[in-house]
């Protein structure tokens, strides 16, 4: 079974986002960009499926600027993906358009499973996997904390508001990863060197004939309201007093 893993290049999770003074967005100039952490979990899961013999080939795909090739496709191949596809564009591509492009890639590649991160930590949309499932007419196992292939089905344990839920999906299917699915391995330097020899196909949006015109216009981006600085109390007694003053205790 072939596994397709779409990944996104985002502001590194350790970097504090800064809103641009002109209110047009978040400043991404000269800051560290990395693979979306949930996508690393997706790659890791695919690699583990391959190690277990449940997957035969891992194809990683990203849609974005040229730099995504070195910032994320290389990392993904170093972690164990077999080959990459870069759909290069400088335009903003919204989740719906991403899903449409990925649906075309899926038609070409015919994977048995597509594993995506549940959300990207930049726009926090949490949409692409579900949209792709809709476009392909496939089953979806979102927010996965466990994935088990069983013949032509996949069992997915999902993190839901009340606890955990397990669904049994017909393959081919979509899985989106939650934090506790696995702990991704590091892309080691020797593996990064080796990964450079794994192929990357370079494509454009036009190759897929998808209209990616955005539906949304961002009118402005601002910083959230700041909290007032608080006080420190010196003892538990003082804290109890404060809580009582608020009517809490």
């Amino acid at each position: 079974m072939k596994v397709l893993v779409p990944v996104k290049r985002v502001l590194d999770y350790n970097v504090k986002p800064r809103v641009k003074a002109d209110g047009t967005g978040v400043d991404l100039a000269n800051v560290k960009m990395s693979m979306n952490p949930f996508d690393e979990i997706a790659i890791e899961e695919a690699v583990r499926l391959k190690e277990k013999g449940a997957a035969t080939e891992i194809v990683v795909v990203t849609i974005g600027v040229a730099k995504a090739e070195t910032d994320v496709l290389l990392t993904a191949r170093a972690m164990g993906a077999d080959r990459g596809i870069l759909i290069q564009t400088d335009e903003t591509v919204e989740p719906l358009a991403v899903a449409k492009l990925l649906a075309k890639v899926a038609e070409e590649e015919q994977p048995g499973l597509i594993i995506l991160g549940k959300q990207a930590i930049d726009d926090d949309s949490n949409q692409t996997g579900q949209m792709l499932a809709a476009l392909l007419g496939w089953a979806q196992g979102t927010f996965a904390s466990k994935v088990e292939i069983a013949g032509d089905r996949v069992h997915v344990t999902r993190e839901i508001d009340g606890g955990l839920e397990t669904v049994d999906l017909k393959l081919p299917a979509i899985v989106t990863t939650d934090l506790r699915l696995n702990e991704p391995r590091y892309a080691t330097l020797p593996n990064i060197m080796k990964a450079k020899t794994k192929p990357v196909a370079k494509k454009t949006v036009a190759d897929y004939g998808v209209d990616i015109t955005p539906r949304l216009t961002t009118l402005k981006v601002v910083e959230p309201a700041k909290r007032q600085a608080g006080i420190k109390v010196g003892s538990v007694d003082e804290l109890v007093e404060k809580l009582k003053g608020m009517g809490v205790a």
Partner: protein
Amino acid sequence: MKTLVWVEHDNQSVKDATLSTVTAAAKLGDVHLLVAGKGVSGVAEAAAKIEGVGKVHVADDAAYEHFLAENVAPLIVQLMGDHDAVLFPATTTGKNVAPRVAAALDVMQISDILSVEGADTFTRPIYAGNAIATVQTSDKKLVLTVRGTAFDKAATTGGSGTVEAVAAAGDTGLSTFAGAEIAASERPELTSAKIIVSGGRALGSSEQFHALIDPLADKLGAAVGASRAAVDAGYAPNDYQVGQTGKIVAPMVYVAVGISGAIQHLAGMKDSKTIVAINKDEDAPIFQVADIGLVGDLFTLVPELTEKL
């Protein structure tokens, strides 16, 4: 505008998350509800009493019992022939189903809205809430998920909606429900609790987490939350996680015990009315958002606090 609101329920009762979504929908126009589930006549009756509700569509069928997106989405798509907007609470169910509906309608969903600025304009958090974007859509129909903490809850009484059965759209057979582990708890639900006590990595073990956090929460009548580190380490179950990728809460009082205050955690709780932090590191980032801070060892301070309350 005619809106359709997904009613969050467990086939027994309407969940609070529905109520803030109704408030958001009412800012756009007429509010219709959809109750999809199995054996849900009681839920539909209760939903019809929610303030401001016009019509309650009820799809009662085994295919909807577990809210599988594969089955529920076609039903909603069908109802969208007659509605201009569909709104879901940003719960795990809403987040699972909404995009499947949006893609089927060829609509770009707007996730986690914080406010309604106009018929096509909304604000929403990006980058873990470190920025707030105002976005305008050009789509003809709207698919929205609503952040519960950003809207008041509609009253559960006063409404007199009419209940109307809708034909089930059938079972797609793509997925089946295989089981669930839902923790039963006497405590209030995290997302609607007035007080929350959350524990972090510093608790050190599941035993200590429960030995320290639970009694304090019980004294305060509080719900219990946790940081990702505490959940990853197995001190607390996954549904306790507060943060960017967990639950978003805004209680009257949030007590953070042994939590450093990473941006991903703050994203889930910084709209709490009062934040109390107990941490041994006086420079911990949590103190930058805390209203009341107490510096010291939680293993002595928390039992003392529990006793003195």
